[in-house]
């Protein structure tokens, strides 16, 4: 369908302030924990606390005898005890085995939170500890303990990508470099720990009000667990205190549902920060071993790579993350000859799953570092080597099909280079403030898919209802789309108002109730503005056409938008059409390295993004700036430590997030608008992209400052100092 050119004054691109901000600045906004009311039963989870064990017996007698304790729920109380976004391999409450320390064994319900906690401490679980496998490389061994005994091995998925003839290309290359890169877990650390309430309505419907990223998927999994028709389960979202992928898997939603359904009383559950940290999934740790080859003319001709991801105890979204990481192991460059193998394995560590970037940051930490190293080896400006190899219209992906139309990697890079020269003195000699304080600049590119990949069903549905006689008086937009803080509801509202040609105030949004709004798909994969926005846009136009034609007081249209389909990858070669849209980014950073302590301070950031079309410029900037803070934490600071399956950093005092003093005041988000063919008004996603190039840009800047390469994230002071010492030849 054709997209009409908006007539001025257009709402598209306008930085309309967020309607939800008012309640958030006055304290009135109700987050899940704010919904807890007197009279509700309080729930407390009994966690396994051990990485791998057989449950011999659960004795609830002492807990039930504790004053105020009403019930102790166990696996026997769960009608269908397996859930998962992609593959249902995770028990709601463990029956026979626990597979990681944050596994849930029992759920205590009591009249007060204190009684629930006391009851949980009194639940006596007898275990027979089993050998745990907590190293992903060890999990590959044929004699490794199996995390899921019914499977043949711990390999959850192997993805091969084959293209061209890498052996011949390496033989012909002028420069061949090897690299090995390590990344660790990252914790989402949304500021609002998991919480929620649930109750059963007099009509028999089960209502769960909490936070999440996908109303209808939460509903599906809860209904399946309780063996209820989906319509009997209602999922509602309160104000959501951040998500970043961390609310994509069920964490407590199903436990609330189970307890309310079993006990027929309103229930409440609020996790402490520690419970949140040990129990929900994390970003995948990955090890990437790779070899890159190039000719002296600056053509990258061959890549061989192995990606090994620690998927933890349950499948979560691991298979999708692994496919992305494998696809992006060659970054945004057209490599004619490649052989990439991705593996994700089960271990007895925390489950790994969705986190902003979804496999792209790990893969491109390796790829972008290798491209810069190749450039150095060739005596070429790293930006120039990128320019010569970066995706253009018609470039073939590692899966041997053309990159979806709207390829803007090159203009994004070129703008970044201009900005880096002007603002960071890229390519210029640099002054260092003191002998032990050395400054450097680094640059990197990034690519990340928008929307679901590899044939995963992709759709977004919206309903628009119109009311008015002589003119459109009121529009009601129904779309079950989570606003996790990113401002989706406002972007969707602006799109509706623009498409209908009415002021924003006349558009009412119904978004947070699975029974009142259709399925928009998840608030993830940077997809909601493109997918949800397009559904709203198309439904608005359809409703408006009906309203004009019928001259009725009211009209309604529901549109399910589906983008160009993607396909599964060929199991041998990886051939296929993995994605329908990409977002492109390029960044340059200036850092200062303290060579006495290894501390790295980021001084300036340029972050360039093609967003297709900024629906709300202020919100787009907010996504870029916020993502940069998470990227800075990931690159330098956030060190989630696990030993033998046990979390050593379960607090915000031990797992450190960037404070306002850690972010450089000089941040330049640069927004390009090179329209996407399918997005509403040309918009494409932006939420994740700033996380992709950042760590390799920092690594390049550290190298520029000091001459050492860091290949392990986070690049902590300790790792930086040791790298400097080995460069100087100091004895350890």
């Amino acid at each position: 369908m054709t997209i009409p050119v908006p007539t001025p004054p257009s709402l598209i691109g306008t930085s309309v302030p967020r309607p939800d901000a008012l309640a958030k600045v006055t304290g009135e906004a109700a987050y899940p924990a704010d919904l807890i009311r007197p009279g509700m039963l309080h729930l407390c989870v009994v966690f396994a606390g051990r990485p791998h064990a057989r449950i011999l017996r659960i004795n609830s007698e002492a807990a039930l005898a504790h004053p105020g304790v009403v019930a102790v729920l166990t696996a026997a109380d769960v009608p269908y005890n397996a859930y998962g976004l992609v593959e249902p391999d995770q028990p709601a409450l463990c029956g026979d085995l626990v597979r990681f320390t944050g596994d849930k064994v029992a759920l205590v319900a009591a009249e007060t939170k204190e009684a629930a906690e006391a009851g949980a401490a009194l639940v006596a679980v007898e275990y027979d500890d089993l050998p745990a496998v907590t190293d992903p490389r060890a999990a590959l061994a044929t004699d490794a303990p199996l995390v899921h005994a019914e499977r043949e091995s711990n390999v959850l998925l192997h993805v091969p990508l084959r293209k061209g003839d890498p052996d011949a290309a390496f033989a012909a290359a002028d420069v061949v470099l090897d690299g090995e890169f390590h990344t660790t877990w990252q914790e989402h650390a949304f500021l609002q720990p998991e919480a929620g309430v649930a109750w059963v309505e007099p009509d028999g419907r089960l209502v769960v009000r909490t936070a999440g990223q996908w109303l209808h998927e939460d509903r599906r999994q809860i209904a399946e667990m309780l063996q209820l028709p989906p319509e009997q389960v209602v999922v509602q979202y309160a104000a959501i205190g951040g998500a970043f992928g961390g609310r994509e898997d069920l964490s407590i939603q199903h436990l609330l549902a189970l307890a309310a359904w079993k006990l027929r009383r309103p229930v409440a559950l609020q996790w402490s920060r520690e419970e949140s940290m040990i129990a929900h999934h994390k970003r995948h740790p990955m090890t990437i071993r790779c070899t890159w080859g190039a000719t002296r003319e600056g053509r990258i001709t061959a890549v061989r790579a192995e990606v090994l991801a620690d998927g933890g105890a349950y499948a979560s979204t691991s298979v999708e993350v692994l496919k992305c990481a494998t696809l992006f192991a060659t970054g945004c460059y057209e490599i004619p000859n490649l052989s990439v193998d991705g593996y994700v394995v089960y271990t007895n560590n925390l489950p790994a799953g969705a986190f902003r970037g979804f496999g792209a940051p790990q893969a491109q930490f390796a790829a972008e570092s290798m491209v810069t190293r190749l450039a150095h080896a060739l005596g070429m400006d790293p930006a120039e080597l990128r320019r010569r190899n970066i995706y253009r219209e018609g470039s073939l992906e590692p899966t041997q099909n053309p990159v979806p139309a709207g390829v803007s990697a090159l203009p994004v890079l070129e703008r970044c280079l201009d900005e880096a020269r002007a603002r960071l003195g890229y390519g210029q000699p640099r002054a260092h403030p003191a002998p032990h304080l050395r400054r450097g600049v680094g640059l990197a590119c990034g690519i990340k898919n928008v929307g679901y990949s590899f044939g995963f069903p992709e759709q977004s549905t919206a309903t628009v209802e119109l009311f008015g006689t002589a003119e459109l008086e009121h529009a009601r937009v129904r779309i079950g789309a989570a606003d996790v803080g990113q401002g989706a509801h406002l972007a969707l509202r602006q799109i509706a108002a623009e498409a209908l040609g009415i002021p924003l105030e006349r558009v009412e949004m119904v978004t947070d109730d699975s029974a009142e709004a259709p399925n928009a798909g998840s608030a993830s994969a940077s997809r909601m503005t493109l997918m949800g926005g397009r559904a709203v846009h198309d439904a608005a136009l359809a409703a408006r056409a009906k309203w004009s034609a019928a001259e009725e007081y009211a009209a309604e249209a529901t549109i399910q938008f589906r983008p160009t389909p993607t396909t599964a990858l060929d199991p041998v070669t990886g051939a296929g059409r993995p994605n329908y849209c990409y977002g492109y980014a390029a960044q340059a950073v200036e850092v200062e390295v303290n060579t006495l302590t290894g501390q790295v301070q980021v001084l300036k950031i340029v972050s360039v993004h093609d967003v297709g079309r900024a629906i709300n410029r202020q919100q787009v900037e907010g996504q870029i700036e916020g993502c940069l803070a998470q990227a800075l934490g990931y690159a330098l600071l956030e060190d989630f430590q696990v030993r033998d399956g046990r979390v050593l950093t379960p607090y915000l005092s031990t797992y450190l997030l960037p404070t306002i003093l850690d972010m450089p005041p000089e941040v330049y988000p640069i927004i390009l608008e090179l329209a996407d063919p399918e997005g509403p008004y040309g918009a494409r996603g932006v939420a994740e992209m700033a996380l992709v190039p950042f760590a390799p840009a920092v690594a390049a800047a550290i190298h520029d400052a000091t001459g050492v390469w860091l290949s392990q994230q986070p690049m902590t002071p300790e790792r930086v100092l040791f790298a400097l010492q080995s460069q100087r030849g100091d004895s350890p």
Partner: protein
Amino acid sequence: MPWQTFLRPASLDELLDLLDQHAGHTRLVAGGTDVLVELSRGILPTATLIDVTAVRDLKYVREDGDALALGALATHNDVIASPACVARVLPLAQACWEVGAPQIRTRATVAGNLVTASPANDTITPLVALDATLVLTGKAGGERIVPLRDFYHGVRKTALRPGELLREVRVPALRPNQRGLFLKLGLRRAQAISVINVAFVVTLDGETVVDASIALGCVAPTIVRAPSAEAYLAGRRLDAEACAEAGRLATQDVTPIDDVRGSARYRLAALSGLVAEGLRRLASGRERDGFPAAPILLEALPLTPFRPQQPESRFSGIIATTINGRPYELPPGAESKSLLDALRKDARLTGPKEGCAEGECGACTVWLGGQAVMSCLVPAAQAHGAQVTTIEGLASASPSPRMEKGSPTEGLGSGGENLHPLQRAFIEHGAVQCGFCIPGMLMAGAKLLDERPHPSLDEIQTALSGNLCRCTGYRKIIDAVLAAGGDA
């Protein structure tokens, strides 16, 4: 919270009586920044908590001849705000400035830091280098004076006897021929527990070191001195070689361990560099570089910390307090909660948020008697007789600026007409995303505007360094505070 009884004596005699009665079965609390975290995790549990903060006589920082005397209730902020401390015991002031964030520094006492006795507590190191002495007092044993160097017997073990109070810290002032400095290595630039820290006091005759006192934190079970480095420096000029060699020697005097913040090997490597760099700074007289001329405190008035308790509102088990201008009597049980829990559960004010319950994230920031505090670390009973302001009361706590017609925030619904200028600026500048940090961010930011109506970028960063945001990257929050400051 795991204590049942909260006692709040109003005089030193009463305090010592209670300490004596409960000797060995109680803990003292002042700022609560260590004690509440420990109790919530079951560390040194107690059924009875004795609150020191109503004993107003213990709240002082004063010059006493050649020494500075800090009462038991002197906070980190009190030290930072004292020109005498900054001038005469600079390493201590620097250490206080490096601790936590303003909401912590406004509550945490130096005496409490000494008694917690963690080898990572920042103020112990400079006090060891400065050779401070402690005045301990108890009903049974009377008063005794213990040099700080003799106070620690191991990890978290002190010479304090059951029933004793650390009443005063006496810190010898730097003499004209002495220079002092404190350096800290943390993993981030605020709210960081030390990986290592170092304090120096060097006595010079011209350019020659007569005597060097170097104290090292986080590299042994207690804070230790560096005798090898100190002996080496005596009689030498602080040239590049001497500084570097002293750094190397300091590593011989310590026994660091591996923990989540760093390995022993890293601590040794960084220690050598940090000691050398500190000596170079002292040699060139740059020890005061970077210490702010007018530090941000997030207090309405320095040295007016815990709200004075009215004699008639003596705490006797039921908390009577004023929240957002309204009187509240909290139900029984509130006295064994944190202020955050009491506000959320008993006063039904859910604006203040719990993000960590350990004073790291700042989402629970409220005003208590004019200070911005982390309410998760305040015993609720300390609000007895005091004024509390939460996010729900922020708009009315300001001289009700009317929203201008035509402003972008017009028409956002009821309540938008009467906002604090900072609330308005947050909306207009896009500083709100998920919003969970915003109640705390606004309470800290608005307190900054009380203290500094036109704050600089640095001052804004300092003021908000105790408030984590995971969504915005802080950029638009800074813009909003700058804009509100410009309007003020």
